[in-house]
């Protein structure tokens, strides 16, 4: 199999290299793309390399921007992203973490994509660049509509969460790290003793990371007490469409989801 390797001078140029070519792919960490090639995906005929395009930067502040080529290891090494350390650390072993990127994670299918689950709970938007234009799209829309040919994800952007407002837990069969039975991320800002602006997202409970809107509604305006947690747990499986895979059956995922959601909301140790 012949594979054409090309380098671009800019993200815009890389986007135009991808735009007119169905066989072209943008290579970030390679943990999905190279694996697909090895597994026999002959539709990949050209690879546009992402290194040297400045996509590996992190900008901190009230708004946080993480470049699409930032690796899980870079996230782990950034003290200003402490709330995301448990997320990055839950993905693969150290070798995968030094390769796998934030941008690549947005394209992962169940049971992968835990970083995208966290970003969904954080209300992130996806900044992408085409041959001549930059655009920002809500991550939820990005995940449901799918990527657009000829556009490259530059970064993800979100408001820095209030101290302690972000929670995450990932359930695996293999310890300490493995693919998700399921993962849950929640943003639970509290204002005047009540939850205000709850966002909850799941991984491996649908083909792509999804929001748990019934759970968000059950938590909104409550003091996050036992009654609210029980109501959230009762609504936990609403809208989910998990798959059977070697980690767990769809039945099992639905059965244990309310338990793990309850533990996350009550602040129980993992």
């Amino acid at each position, binding site marked *: 199999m012949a594979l054409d*390797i090309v380098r671009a001078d800019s993200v815009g140029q890389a986007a135009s290299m991808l735009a007119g070519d169905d066989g072209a792919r943008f290579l970030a960490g390679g943990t999905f793309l190279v694996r697909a090639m*090895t597994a026999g995906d002959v539709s990949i005929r050209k690879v546009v390399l992402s290194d040297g395009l400045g996509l590996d930067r992190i900008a901190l502040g009230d708004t946080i921007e993480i470049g699409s080529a930032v690796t899980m290891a870079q996230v782990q090494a950034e003290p200003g992203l402490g709330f995301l350390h448990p997320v990055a650390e839950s993905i693969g*072993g150290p*070798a*995968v973490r030094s390769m796998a990127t934030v941008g690549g994670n947005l394209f992962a299918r169940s049971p992968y994509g835990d970083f995208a689950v966290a970003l969904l709970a954080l209300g992130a938007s996806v900044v992408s660049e085409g041959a001549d234009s930059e655009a920002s799209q809500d991550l939820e829309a990005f995940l449901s509509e799918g990527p657009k040919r000829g556009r490259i994800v530059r970064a993800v952007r979100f408001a820095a969460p209030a101290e302690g407002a972000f929670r995450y837990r990932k359930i695996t069969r293999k310890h300490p790290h493995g693919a998700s039975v399921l993962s849950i991320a929640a943003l639970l800002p509290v204002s005047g003793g009540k939850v205000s602006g709850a966002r909850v997202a799941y991984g491996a409970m649908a083909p792509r990371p999804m929001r748990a809107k019934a759970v968000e509604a059950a938590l909104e305006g409550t003091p996050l007490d036992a009654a609210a947690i029980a109501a959230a747990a009762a609504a936990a499986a609403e809208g989910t469409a998990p798959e059977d895979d070697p980690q767990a059956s769809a039945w099992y995922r639905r059965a244990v989801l309310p338990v793990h959601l309850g533990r996350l909301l009550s602040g129980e140790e993992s």
Partner: protein
Amino acid sequence: MAKLPLIFTVNGTEQAEFVDGDALLVDVLRDKLGMTGTRVGCGQGTCGACTILIDGAPALSCLTLAVSANGKDVTTVEGLAMGGTLHALQTAFADGFATQCGFCTSGMLVAAKALLDRNPDPDRDAVVDAISGNICRCTGYEPIINAILAAAADLRSAKSA
């Protein structure tokens, strides 16, 4: 399709090769450079047998296109020993029966080196995390974890001596 130049450093020696675009780094190391210490297990990034260091960070050579290593500094398991002297990790693995069939050993050693280069005094959880991407079907992991902790202690005492 034309071959592509690949110039990189492997275990301190500069290497220059012409490779196909789809050549994997592990295949270049094994088949072109004859360094067969790095293993191909699953070919999917799951087993860790192909773990090497790229610019000091652990990476999976079965999921790395060879051209991506251009200009980089690669360390394989062959780069651990100094001449005829084994690395403390290799000695500890041998002494602690941390290797059985041996297939995972190269990846385990390199993953452990990545940890000790960064953290000379790891606790048990840090060691478990460091090898969490490496699968061993023989040992049950305990002898490997103990060997890495023993090697860390040896290296620290050698440094303070």
